[in-house]
């Protein structure tokens, strides 16, 4: 059987994915609680105000956030014990197939992660968060243009 194709989530994804009544509860494995946040900008450096970002934690945790009027998102997570990163998954109007990226913790050994060897050195920093405050990490993303964020294709086999 062949894979069902993707289509954009469109501008009104909040109706189904961020419902006002009974939104899906995040699930977080045990660990040091951290806040992850940032902004998503388009090719013209304008904020992407209708995006949704999901955090997929290496230990089967999950959380999501919609961007606000400034393109800002924020998530509560826990620090992974098994990897120097969390996976991020981004959809919005204009994104035909979801974008997958990672947030690396600057105070973890991200340089040694095998994925880094696949990325041109000059682009690696687009995935490394900065420590914004105690327990808070910031990663700004750029969908295209100067300092375009690295996005991955999880190919398999």
């Amino acid at each position, binding site marked *: *059987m*062949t*894979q*069902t*194709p*993707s*289509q*954009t*989530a*469109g*501008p*009104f*994804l*909040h*109706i*189904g*994915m961020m*419902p006002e009544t*009974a939104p*899906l509860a995040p*699930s977080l494995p045990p660990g040091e609680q951290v806040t992850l946040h940032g902004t998503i900008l*388009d*090719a013209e450096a*304008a904020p*992407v105000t*209708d995006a949704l970002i999901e955090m*997929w934690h*290496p*230990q*089967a*945790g*999950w959380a999501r956030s919609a961007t606000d009027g400034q393109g800002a998102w924020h998530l509560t997570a826990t620090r992974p014990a*098994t*990897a120097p990163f969390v*996976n991020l*998954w981004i*959809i*919005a*109007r*204009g*994104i*035909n*197939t*979801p974008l997958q990226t990672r947030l690396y913790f600057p105070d973890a050994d991200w340089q040694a992660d095998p*994925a880094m060897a*696949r*990325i041109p050195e000059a*682009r690696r920093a687009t995935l490394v968060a900065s420590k914004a405050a105690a327990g808070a990490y910031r990663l700004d993303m750029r*969908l*295209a243009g100067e300092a*375009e*964020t*690295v*996005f*991955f*294709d*999880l*190919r*398999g*086999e």
Partner: protein
Amino acid sequence: MTPLDWTRHPPALTPGYFSSVIRSPRKGLIPLDPTEADLTGPVFGAQDIHHADSDLTRPGISSDALAIGPRILVHGRVLDEAGRGVPDALLEIWQANAGGRYRHARDGYLAPLDPNFSGCGRVLTAEDGSYRVDTIMPGAYPFPNGPNAWRPAHIHFSVFGWAFAQRLVTQMYFEGDPMIRHCPIVATLPSPEAVDALVARYDPEHDRPMDARAFRFDIVLRGRRATPMEA
């Protein structure tokens, strides 16, 4: 895990769909082998949703009011590429009302809101991967993409399988809708076969007589390939 099949999914940059132009990466995707972590995900269950979440025709469990529009049910199975049903897959769905208007602060279309229609639903697949939702036929609506662009009637689907690598967001269309071939978002798909895979079929065998027409929409997620034992 099988790779994402780029003969099926739309590329990032599709100039005919204007919104993709400033929101598409240009430097190419970096290929990565999935790690063990990419083959896991959150486990959603009955505690996360209510059985009434799969009935969009009513505004609430304690209400007798009904949404306006042709009554339909959408059913099918969530499968992996080996054809095995995916149990406990969570589907989140959302759609416009019968007039083509979304219940959303940023939708200013002229068609009126329906006080009895939220357009939001959720359902978990059964052991064999099957699901069913009750809803109303959504309307077509215009959207800003050049001088005159319309969306065919469609239902948005967000699908969680058992792994990050299976995560899918898509849209379901309706068999026979002439708007499909005019839609710039449908046109982002790489082939007529990919379009066809998103078109639900009228399925009279599953109609509820004197109540609702049935449409069938199966969803195939990336999955482990069939092992030699199973093949």
